[in-house]
């Protein structure tokens, strides 16, 4: 029995892979260590996200026809969607920050969707990438709050609607939750993307079991159906996580614009 499974593993060896292999950052050209300026697969897929953005938002809207073409109406839909979100959640006075939020949304949505292509690298599945995005949001919001309100921005921690004895305790909790924001903000996106893609790869590792033995007759169709179902879920998650990242940016922005509860 033991030799049988061993042989099976040998036969299927070229199909066996680790589910986390897809997240390895490799140099695009040649081998060797990854330095600061090495062109890696992350660079490639970020550049593709940038090209897709240019294709949609610059080339798509360059004609500005009254009757929009298909690409132009998609671009207008994106613009209207994000603008309405900023207006609804953060208020009218947050509209000067709309370009930044639009940039975040478009970059994340394109990185997520491009990562769903078979064999692609998901840039947003790395905490390093999402942490930069989240830290920029955190720093922008904090600095902007201090510039706008001076020390009055600290009122965001002082909940004046609560009973007075409770306020110091609440202030402590608010301070902790304020500084945890960039952590949860970045890991939410990276964790969701990483977990979904790893699950797809786990089922993909079960799919070639039909080459190993009779048990594959059962396992292979089931795992292929599971891949299809999870892939559909991932398309949804890719959009929802970009939406959630953007809407939380709007919420933080609102807190900084109106720090008094």
């Amino acid at each position: 029995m033991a030799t049988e499974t061993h042989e099976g593993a040998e036969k299927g060896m070229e199909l066996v892979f680790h589910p986390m292999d897809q997240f390895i950052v490799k140099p695009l050209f040649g081998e060797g260590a990854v330095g600061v300026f090495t062109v890696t697969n992350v660079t490639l897929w970020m550049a593709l996200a940038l090209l897709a953005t240019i294709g949609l938002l610059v080339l798509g809207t360059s004609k500005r026809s009254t009757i929009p073409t298909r690409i132009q109406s998609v671009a207008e839909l994106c613009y209207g969607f994000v603008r309405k979100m900023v207006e609804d959640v953060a208020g009218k006075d947050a509209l000067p920050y709309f370009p930044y939020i639009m940039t975040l949304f478009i970059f994340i949505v394109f990185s997520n969707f491009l990562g769903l292509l078979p064999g692609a690298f998901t840039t947003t599945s790395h905490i390093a990438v999402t942490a930069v995005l989240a830290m920029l949001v955190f720093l922008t919001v904090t600095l902007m709050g201090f510039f706008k309100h001076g020390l009055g921005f600290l009122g965001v921690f002082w909940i004046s609607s609560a009973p007075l004895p409770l306020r110091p305790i609440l202030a402590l909790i608010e301070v902790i939750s304020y500084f945890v924001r960039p952590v949860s903000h970045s890991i939410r996106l990276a964790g969701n993307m990483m977990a979904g893609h790893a699950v797809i790869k786990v089922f993909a590792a079960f799919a070639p079991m039909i080459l190993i033995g009779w048990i594959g007759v059962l396992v292979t169709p089931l795992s292929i159906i599971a891949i299809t179902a999870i892939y559909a879920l991932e398309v949804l998650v890719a959009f929802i996580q970009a939406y959630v990242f953007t809407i939380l940016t709007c919420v933080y922005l609102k807190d900084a614009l109106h720090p008094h509860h």
Partner: protein
Amino acid sequence: MEGDVVQMGAYIGAGLACTGMGGAAVGVGHVVGNFLSGALRNPSAAGGQTATMFIGIAFSEALGIFSFLVALLLMFAV
């Protein structure tokens, strides 16, 4: 031998940390379920509150993500 015990503890801890994800699942289900029951009673008001629902989901999901983070730290950083 000592290193093995530490390693074992880290792996067991990582597995235990994953139970926190169940809590996040309960929380997210609670948010969406209550949103849905409210939305079916007053469908005209539901559209404007979808963003609020997503914010609620994101906040309750954050705590499940912290358990995932703890699991990752135990697996790769301890």
